[in-house]
């Protein structure tokens, strides 16, 4: 069992757990993920590592309530424990001195972007971050990203905070304004990563995205997470999760994320029924 040492509700639907997981903490790197299972009947779900502390033996995960499993996870409190916490899985993000890197975080993507921005800055890059959300209430970790970036631009779709609009608008401005951008890292919903990649494509700036297909084991065993990158099939769990956004088949990814839409809805409704009762 893995104990929840601290819990924080970042925004109403997005929660942070600091987990006791010393072995994972020792090995975790920015860009990797863990597979979590709540209990005996639970499914295995991948969650990105948002932070870790080797000395304390802790790993921080951030997740959004999107279905039965994450809703069940959200009900757990400090001191509770979950059955399984497997990791660190996937390849770490590439961290080296590229020059100037733009890190774009959409919604819950702020969590995985934060350690990547921090490590990129440590490696000597100039880091410009763009943090976007639908509305002010859904923004979190502005302070964290501010501290790990040379410059931070915040956007909300409805203009309730920061600049009004989506993240691709300031991204395009940065690319157009003459400053040499050496790399872009974009993490968030599929549609956001897709449009960031489309935005950078004409500028020829390498754009790394972190893909989040459905997974089961997370160790290369099942092939559930297969994605097409540059016309080749890859397993996101072991070949990724980071890939070149200009080569990703986004439509395939979006279609494969919908495989269990019906079952997910059924499970969520069942859970809501039993939970309210």
């Amino acid at each position, binding site marked *: 069992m893995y104990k929840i040492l601290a819990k924080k509700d970042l925004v109403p639907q997005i929660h942070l757990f600091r987990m006791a997981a010393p072995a994972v903490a020792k090995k975790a790197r920015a860009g990797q993920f863990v597979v979590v299972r709540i209990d005996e009947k639970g499914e295995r779900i991948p969650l990105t590592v948002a932070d870790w502390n080797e000395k304390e033996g802790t790993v921080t995960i951030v997740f959004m309530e999107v279905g039965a499993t994450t809703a069940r996870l959200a009900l757990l409190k400090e001191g509770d424990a979950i059955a399984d916490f497997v990791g660190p899985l996937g390849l770490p993000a590439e961290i080296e001195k590229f020059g100037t890197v733009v890190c774009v975080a959409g919604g819950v993507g702020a969590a995985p972007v934060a350690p990547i921005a921090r490590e990129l800055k440590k490696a000597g890059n100039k880091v410009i971050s763009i943090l976007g959300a639908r509305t002010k209430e859904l923004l979190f970790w502005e302070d964290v990203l501010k501290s790990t970036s040379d410059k931070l631009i915040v956007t909300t779709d409805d203009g309730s905070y920061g600049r009004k609009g989506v993240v691709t608008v300031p991204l395009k401005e940065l690319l157009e304004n003459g400053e040499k951008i050496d790399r872009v890292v974009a993490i968030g919903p599929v549609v956001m990563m897709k449009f960031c990649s489309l935005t950078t494509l004409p500028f020829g700036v390498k754009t790394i995205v972190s893909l989040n297909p459905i997974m089961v084991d997370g*160790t290369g065993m099942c092939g559930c997470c297969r994605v097409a990158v540059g016309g080749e099939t890859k397993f996101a769990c072991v070949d990724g999760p980071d890939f070149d956004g200009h080569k990703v088949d986004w439509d395939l990814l979006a279609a494969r994320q919908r495989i269990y839409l019906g079952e997910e809805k059924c499970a969520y409704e069942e859970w809501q029924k039993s939970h309210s009762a």
Partner: protein
Amino acid sequence: MAKLNLNRVAMPRQAPKKRAKNFNEVALGYSLVQAKEEAGRCIQCPKRNCVEGCPVGVDIPDFIRAIREGDMPEAVRVLKSKNALPGICGRVCPQESQCEATCSLAKKEAPIAIGRLERFVADWERANMGAAKSPKSSNPTGKPPGKKIAVVGSGPAGLTAAADLSKLGYSVTIFEALHVAGGVLMYGIPEFRLPKAIVQAEVDYVASLGVKIELDSVVGKLATIDELLADGYQAVFLGTGAGLPMFMNIEGENLNGIYSANEFLTRVNLMKAYLFPDYDTPVKIGKRVAVIGGGNVAMDSARCALRLGADKVYIVYRRSEVELPARREEVENAQEEGIEFRLLTNPKKFLGNEQNWVVGMECYEMELGEPDDSGRRRPVVKEGSEFVIDVDEVIVALGTRPNPLIASTTEGLKTTKHGTVVADEATGKTVKDKVWAGGDIVTGAATVISAMGAGKVAAADINKFLGG
């Protein structure tokens, strides 16, 4: 000499129509009377060819004699002194090509049903003695325990190596990547062929010998092999199997509704998707399901799909019935349950709809040409023979390769072009100092018992290396 009795006692089984709708075990096991009757057919021949035919060298005539004499505790003792996993082996070993093939009565086409008797002994023990009461290691070497050995993977090879090494007095830790121990016995072989409670009882037995099992531990991602060696482990046994599914690399393979057999079986067996939504993991339930391949994994996948409620399940295999690599018994079980075999058929591409769901499979008719390297006649495409099978789910069961994780994170291991780890067949020793390997990671996908045999061989060699 008494007259030979050539009437094998039949295995009671669930009726095909009934079992095709449930996940309960198909074979029901002998009663004591049936077991004694079958054991009574053994002529206790002095040649003991059956023992030769067993990859782990079980003293078969001795446990059969004990059954005949009604001394079940003795039968248990004999069996378990060589085989830590008899309930598993009695169910899934291909006895017909091993011990039963070398049985003196095999010439008369009535070999003793050794597998069924093995299963009976294991089930009797579980029902009457309980795994917890199994004798702990008596440390037969008499040397103080303490030398640490790491076993990577808790499938049949790892469990066997760990059990043998623990009995020899070593301090053994198994590292398992998944959340339960058992490897392919848990995620691959379905409940109706190998109940998971039996796997867990035999895992518990291995643990009762003093073996420590660390779950959720992905070696290579957590500690590497070299870090384990630096951390005081004096030998490492790699039994990580062949867990990487192979696809065909043909058009449309990433359509929704196309599974690797590994994924489909993992969802159903390990995650218990057949109990969704009580269990959280879902699996798609197709109406018309095609399983591509002709091995045991293909049969398992097809029979799972049928039990989940498919109207029509096809086995699509590119050769003919005689070349099917699956056990005869499993092919017959599948046929009885209504699985349709589309032989000499091979997919060309998968057809999808606008939502990326598979709706059909374009196939070639095949014919058999000259024998290939495997000795089987090579399937050849009949040009212009393309036709479409309507399907809404496809399960690709074309074999697996070792996961590259261990090899890619370990300096000094030698691998083949198939991704298997090179190890001496007689000892299990790899080219890397202090590292042994056995089972599917060395041979590619094979049988449970051959993996156990390899685990045993490696355990003996590790003991020799460590001065036992």
